[in-house]
């Protein structure tokens, strides 16, 4: 044991008893951690039967986890309200119909740029679910993915920590990801990032390479565009393990995992052009809020900031930290600082590190519940959440939320092919609800040329040239935000009339009436 401890000391594993021994799955780790904790001599006041307070404390991690599960299930039971959900559903339906993966069509006639579908399998799956079960089915599906995300993060944390630290770190990660938990394919990426990082922690512990990451990346590359995050995590972990000397004689072979993952992504039905889609995104990042730089005054970023701060205190007050954890932290900090959208993936990377560091701090103060109780409770709670979700969604998620539903009769009455001025994601809802209507923009920005998006920006800001954009669009109807610069310009300068309101939107028609 002493020899094992010294060999792991520089790797950041020194105080986690379970990781000193060989193991193959989560539950083995749990057992060993618990045994180590239970085997410690009782502290003053611990002798005899545990007090009710102590028993309550023992169960507190599970209570926290169950609370988180209920919270996440409740989020899943909400009506679909993310603007992008609608164009994903529309795209999914069209992929089952007239579109092909190689030559997808345009969501509106204004989307004239060639684009690569990066999340087609999720879109097709959710579209089919909608065909079968309607919007409640879609809400249920994403609710399941949210729960899978929670369980995956907890599993990754739990492999390195005790239940309390695992639950606390999972809770922090879930809060940091709260704004990302929406009916969009990106939640699949969150789950798979947790799975990937967990796989590498297991490799670090037992030395076995997880080749199944390659086919998983293949699937991921069809499900969502953030598969590259998985490749980056693999690369960071490979480098970290190499620097730690854990890959003696196998550095090259281990490198095949990130490299093979990259190759796997090029072997989807879309072929190597999937890689080019990353460039299309980067061209448009300045125009997409969630690809903008992070503000650390938002709750998710603040939570990640606090997680990193606590981790740094725990690490730097202790012994040396290993290369792999350090590289994962650097990657997470880079993501969190540079891109709003990557705050949630950063939290997923930090959570296990935090859980491990907290465990070292709490180890002597916490008695963990038995392995069997934990497994059974978690499984039953997950089942209960799934059942609750299934019972709730038919009534709670049967209609869209956060959309200008009051305008539906007017929009339905428009002739096919009518252009409609919009300035926010209500365009995506319109495409889904009224496939014949042509909003001037939606959230699928890859399919719009950069030049068009610049002109749209001029319109949206009511800067010189905005009237040219309106004229070129041919729109005689508009669904705009009340009081916005563009709405004010349409009313004051182009004399459009507000004919209906559905806060925060207004329905406007051009002078002379709609055509």
């Amino acid at each position, binding site marked *: 044991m002493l020899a094992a401890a010294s060999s792991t000391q520089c790797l950041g594993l020194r105080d986690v008893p379970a990781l000193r021994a060989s193991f193959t799955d989560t539950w083995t780790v749990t057992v060993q951690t618990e045994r180590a904790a239970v085997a410690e001599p009782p502290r003053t006041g611990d002798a005899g039967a545990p007090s009710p307070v102590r028993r309550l404390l023992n169960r507190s991690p599970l209570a926290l986890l169950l609370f988180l599960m209920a919270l996440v299930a409740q989020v899943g039971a909400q009506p679909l309200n993310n603007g992008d959900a609608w164009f994903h559903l529309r795209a999914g339906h069209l992929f089952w119909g007239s579109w092909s993966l190689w030559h997808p069509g345009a969501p509106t006639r204004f989307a004239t740029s060639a684009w690569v579908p990066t999340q087609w399998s999720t879109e097709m799956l959710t579209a089919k679910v909608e065909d079968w079960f309607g919007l409640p089915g879609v809400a249920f599906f994403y609710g399941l993915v949210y729960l899978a995300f929670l369980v995956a993060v907890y599993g990754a944390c739990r492999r390195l920590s005790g239940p309390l630290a695992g639950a606390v770190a999972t809770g922090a990660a879930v809060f940091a990801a709260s704004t990302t938990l929406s009916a969009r394919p990106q939640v699949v990426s969150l789950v798979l990032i947790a799975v990937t990082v967990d796989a590498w922690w297991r490799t670090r512990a037992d030395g076995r390479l997880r080749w199944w990451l390659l086919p998983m990346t293949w699937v991921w590359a069809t499900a969502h565009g953030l598969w590259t995050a998985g490749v980056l995590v693999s690369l960071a972990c490979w480098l970290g393990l190499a620097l730690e000397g854990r890959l003696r004689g196998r550095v090259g072979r281990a490198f095949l995992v990130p490299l093979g993952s990259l190759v796997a992504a090029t072997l989807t039905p879309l072929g190597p052009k999937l890689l080019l889609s990353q460039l299309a995104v980067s061209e448009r990042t300045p125009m997409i809020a969630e690809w903008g*730089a*992070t*503000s*650390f*005054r938002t709750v998710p970023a603040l939570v990640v*900031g606090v997680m990193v*701060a606590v981790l*740094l*205190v725990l*690490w*730097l*007050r*202790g*012994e*040396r*930290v290993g290369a792999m954890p*350090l590289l994962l*932290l*650097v990657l997470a*900090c880079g993501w969190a*600082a*540079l891109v709003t959208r990557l705050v949630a993936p950063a939290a997923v990377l930090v959570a296990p590190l935090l859980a491990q560091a907290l465990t070292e701090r709490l180890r002597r103060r916490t008695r963990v519940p038995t392995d069997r109780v934990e497994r059974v409770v978690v499984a039953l709670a997950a089942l209960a959440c799934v059942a609750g979700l299934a019972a709730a969604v038919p009534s709670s998620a049967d209609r869209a939320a956060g959309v200008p539903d009051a305008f539906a009769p007017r929009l339905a009455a428009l002739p096919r092919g009518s252009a409609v001025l919009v300035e926010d994601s209500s365009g995506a809802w319109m495409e889904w609800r009224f496939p014949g209507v042509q909003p001037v923009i939606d959230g699928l920005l890859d399919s719009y040329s950069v030049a068009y998006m610049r002109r749209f920006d001029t319109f949206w*800001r*009511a*800067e*010189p040239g905005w009237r040219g954009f309106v004229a070129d669009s041919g729109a005689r109807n508009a669904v705009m935000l*009340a*009081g*916005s*610069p563009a*709405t*004010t*310009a349409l009313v*004051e*300068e182009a004399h459009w009339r507000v004919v209906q309101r559905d806060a925060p939107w207004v329905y406007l028609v051009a002078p002379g009436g709609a055509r």
Partner: protein
Amino acid sequence: MSGTTQTPVRPEDPAEAPGEGTPAQRSFDRKVTAVTLLCLVALLLRVAVYAMKPLANADTWFHLRIGHELWGPWSLAHPGTLTRFATADWVPTQWATEMLVAKVEDWFGLPGVAWLFGAFYLAFVLVLYGACRRRADLLVATMATGAALISAAGVLSVRPQVLSLILFVVTGMVWQRAVEAGRVPWLLVPLTWVWACVHGLWSAGVVLGVVVAAGALLDAPRGARPWRLLSIPLLSVVAAAVTPVGPRLLASQLTVSARTGFISEWLPTSFRTPPAIAFAAMAGVLVLLWAHRGKIAWTPLLLLLLACGWAALVTRMLAFSAVLVAPLLAAELAAFRNRPVTAAQVRAERRTVTVAVVVLLGLMAVAVPRTATAPAGVPDRFAPRLAELPQGSAVLVEDAVGSWIEYRFPGLDPTIDGMFDAYTLDYLHRFQAVPPVAAGWASFVRQAHPQAAVLVRGSALEAAMRNRLGWRAVSRDAGWVYLVPGRAS
């Protein structure tokens, strides 16, 4: 501060550290020293050249105007307003610097102001270098200073906040020496009094004191905890409350915090800007080095967390974060370069830096009368038209050009300037609709009843004024356009 002075290099005691190594090694070290000194001088030269440029920061103009008014009819207790639209009560938080700069302008004009701030910039580089040099050798200290300067570059402008940066570094050094010597740094109490007269960010020094004192308490063994250190931040707050402005100065911090949403430099930092990237790189390297070493003392650890928190949450605090991290980074990097120096080397270094600074001050004195006589980045071509406007005319502006109008034409009332403390929150909310031409802009313009407008060329507001209110553009200058009401309007 305790736990941070890890380097065995003690340049302040050169006699104890005679030159070591083979002759070849010593020769190489001498060359490295010479090249590094050249780099340091080049850094100072770069700063001096920057200082020779014409004054271009928009806030400079309202600081100068306030300074002049405080020498004149205004009092610290009841300052006036720069424009009739600024109707909120406000507290002068940087009056000493403003009055000093206004007097320098009276004596030497704008070149004098440029020279004075050039001297401040050089002083800042020197104290920052001194803070790093205390913990590391010449090469490492120069590197750390250079990196911190990249982060602080955006703050180096003709505004009182430069003095806050200098005083912040000095405060850090005083704390470090005091904690190392086991003394209480009483000097910081009068220093904070001065700081509170000079600029509003004296509170950063108090926060620094709280953090250092907390770190020192945590680092000290039980039974020997220096609780007295906590009296310094407390007394510093008291000192700030007894300046000529009185205890109202403390409340002014709340005024600023209520308006941070309107001021870009008080917004959260974007880590895609070079200063933020430079800071992140410094902090990242420091964390990697510390993680490799382990068992970091509380004081430097808390200082790093303070720096990271400031840097992440407030753009303006990035420079303060960088100067906080630079000495920590220097100390850690010094561990990799254990190069004892001789007394002669130290003397040569001091001589070189002193001569360089004196020469650069002289160079600036010669250059600024030619390079900094006229302001830059202002619509100077509109001056004759603005001068012809009747006293008390309102001028519609949408950016910080209002400050220059107030400075140049004290009789005019621009609709906004950079002195947001002097505007009510309600007014600022209403003004917010004007530049993007959102709902409510037209009623704002009607109520302001401007006789002219100086707007950003090609902006949405310019287009709206012309197309919707019938105003005419009569002159253009660089990025601005001068508009007057059309016949119909």
